[in-house]
């Protein structure tokens, strides 16, 4: 392999990746930006080419996205590979090697400076009927609006926990869906604890007020301490109704009612996509929401010199924090390959402020272990392999599994196409509970190992066989 020219490679075209690519280029570095989507913007600024203008009122922050995307796309020092899937990543002798497929062709690149900005996806919890067509994630429902220009259904229930439910419910109402329920599992009192931090972020209060005005206009009445605990199918096997429960502060069911709907969009915050970081053996840590994040220093550099991380993979914190981190990561990566780049106090201050806000938010929306009581023996745990709860429990109680890796081998939970991206995180909790281990005693190693996948994205056998 011939040596690559000195350049910064950025993975991910969302807020963090775009900011990193632009700032590295502005510092004089040549940049290669690799994105899995066909259009830049990530999940946050997902768009159809022709809907930019029509969407402006559905998206509070589209202007920033449009500016960043066009600045990156038009910068002479930035090369962009869209629709590229990285399936393998290694690090050796001070350089990272990425193998990827773009337009059906395999490419291999090496780089001394790498910025990972691979983002996050909706955190999900299983419940009876969550595999029925019509049950989906809030992110999925939103991507249909933003990226495809369609409303997901007619009568929609939005549920789960976290601030992301607000823009999703507002967006659905604005495009003509009847949002019949907007359910937050936690109590509004949790907000009070973080009030001082929230007040320091006035733009966020304005954002909340904007959504509340939309809810008033469309007659959406948010309810608290409620969750969708079961979904029911019609004779065609599609969603017909959901069971909505009033729940206590530990998420245990108090009282249930049935509501008819054709879509239920349910999410519990986000899970960072750490597959690439795991493959590169970057040090990771467990966050306050029991998620996993890449460990970085004050300049977004990971445990391996020359590999930087920014955005949701360093801890869920939203687009503004992602941008602040992306800027620093881009500058630091440029500096690493010898460009003149200055990371100032202001950069660090901006990031610290956004970090504080993100922390306050996460503690306002915990996921409590009572959700496990919603499951029945028949509930699907692993959607890919159709593994039922009874089979996972059998792996622990009868076959002796005490960690999620063994339980996975004995039950096939997490062995399907998604490689545990959906069930891995909550299988850890279910296995621990069945083994009598309290949630706070689950080891960091156990939680982190869930995201480790030798092959990052499923590829065909032929491609593997033809590889070097």
């Amino acid at each position, binding site marked *: 392999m011939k040596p690559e020219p000195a350049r910064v490679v950025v993975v991910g075209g969302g807020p963090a990746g775009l900011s990193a690519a632009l700032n590295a280029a502005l510092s004089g570095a040549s940049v290669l930006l690799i994105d899995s989507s066909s259009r830049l913007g990530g999940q946050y600024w997902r768009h159809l080419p*022709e809907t930019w203008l029509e969407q402006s009122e559905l998206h509070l922050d589209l202007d920033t996205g449009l500016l960043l995307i066009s600045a990156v796309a038009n910068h002479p020092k930035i090369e962009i590979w869209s629709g590229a899937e990285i399936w393998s990543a290694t690090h050796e002798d001070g350089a990272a090697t990425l193998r990827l497929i773009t337009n059906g062709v395999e490419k291999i690149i090496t780089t001394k400076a790498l910025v990972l900005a691979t983002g996050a996806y909706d955190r999900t919890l299983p419940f009876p009927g969550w595999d029925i*067509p019509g049950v989906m*994630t809030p992110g*999925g429902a939103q991507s*249909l609006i933003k990226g495809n220009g*369609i409303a997901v259904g007619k009568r929609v229930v939005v549920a789960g926990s976290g601030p992301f439910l607000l823009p999703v419910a507002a967006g659905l109402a604005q495009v003509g869906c009847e949002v019949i329920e907007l359910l937050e599992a936690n109590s509004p009192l949790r907000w009070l604890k973080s009030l001082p931090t929230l007040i320091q972020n006035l733009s966020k209060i304005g954002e909340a007020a904007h959504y509340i005005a939309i809810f008033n206009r469309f007659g959406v009445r948010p309810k608290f301490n409620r969750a969708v605990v079961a979904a029911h199918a019609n004779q065609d*096997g599609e969603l017909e109704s959901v069971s909505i429960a009033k729940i206590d502060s530990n998420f245990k069911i108090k009282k249930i009612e049935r509501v008819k709907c054709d879509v239920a969009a349910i999410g519990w915050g986000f899970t960072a996509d750490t597959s690439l970081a795991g493959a590169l053996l970057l040090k990771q840590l467990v966050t306050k929401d029991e998620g996993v994040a890449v460990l970085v220093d004050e300049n977004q550099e990971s445990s391996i010199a020359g590999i930087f991380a920014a955005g949701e993979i360093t801890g869920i914190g939203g687009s503004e924090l992602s941008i602040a981190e992306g800027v620093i990561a881009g500058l630091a990566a440029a500096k690493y390959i010898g460009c003149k780049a200055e990371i100032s106090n202001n950069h660090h201050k901006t990031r610290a402020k956004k970090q504080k806000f993100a922390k306050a938010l996460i503690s306002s929306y915990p996921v409590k272990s009572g959700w496990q009581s919603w499951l029945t023996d028949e509930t699907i745990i692993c959607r890919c392999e159709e593994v039922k709860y009874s089979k996972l429990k059998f792996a622990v109680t009868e076959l002796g599994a005490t960690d999620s890796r063994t339980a996975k081998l004995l039950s096939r939970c997490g062995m399907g*196409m998604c490689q545990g991206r959906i069930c891995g995180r909550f299988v850890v909790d279910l296995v621990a509970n069945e083994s009598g281990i309290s949630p706070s005693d689950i080891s960091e190693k156990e939680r982190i190992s869930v995201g480790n996948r030798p092959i990052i994205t499923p590829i065909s056998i032929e491609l593997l066989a033809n590889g070097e």
Partner: protein
Amino acid sequence: MQVLTLLVKPSASITFTFNDLEVSAIPGQSVGAALLAAGDRVLRVTRFEKKPRAMFCGIGVCFDCLVVIDGAPNQRACITEVKAKMVVRTQVGGA
């Protein structure tokens, strides 16, 4: 199932087939979104229990929306951009 409202007036429209029936789409849409807009939500039937599945994560993570496109199985309908004259079929089973 009813046809869903389109949020944008497309300047162009293309057609493809799903299980031999013609479906129209806006350029730039995903296969899954175009099918949902046309009233086809179920994309796959599971391997063991033969249960219907549809788009779940919507962003290429969960692999629940697998379809057969132009003879190639295991294509994620939610992130595969629709192209004119594509031949799309329901997939039975996973990988």
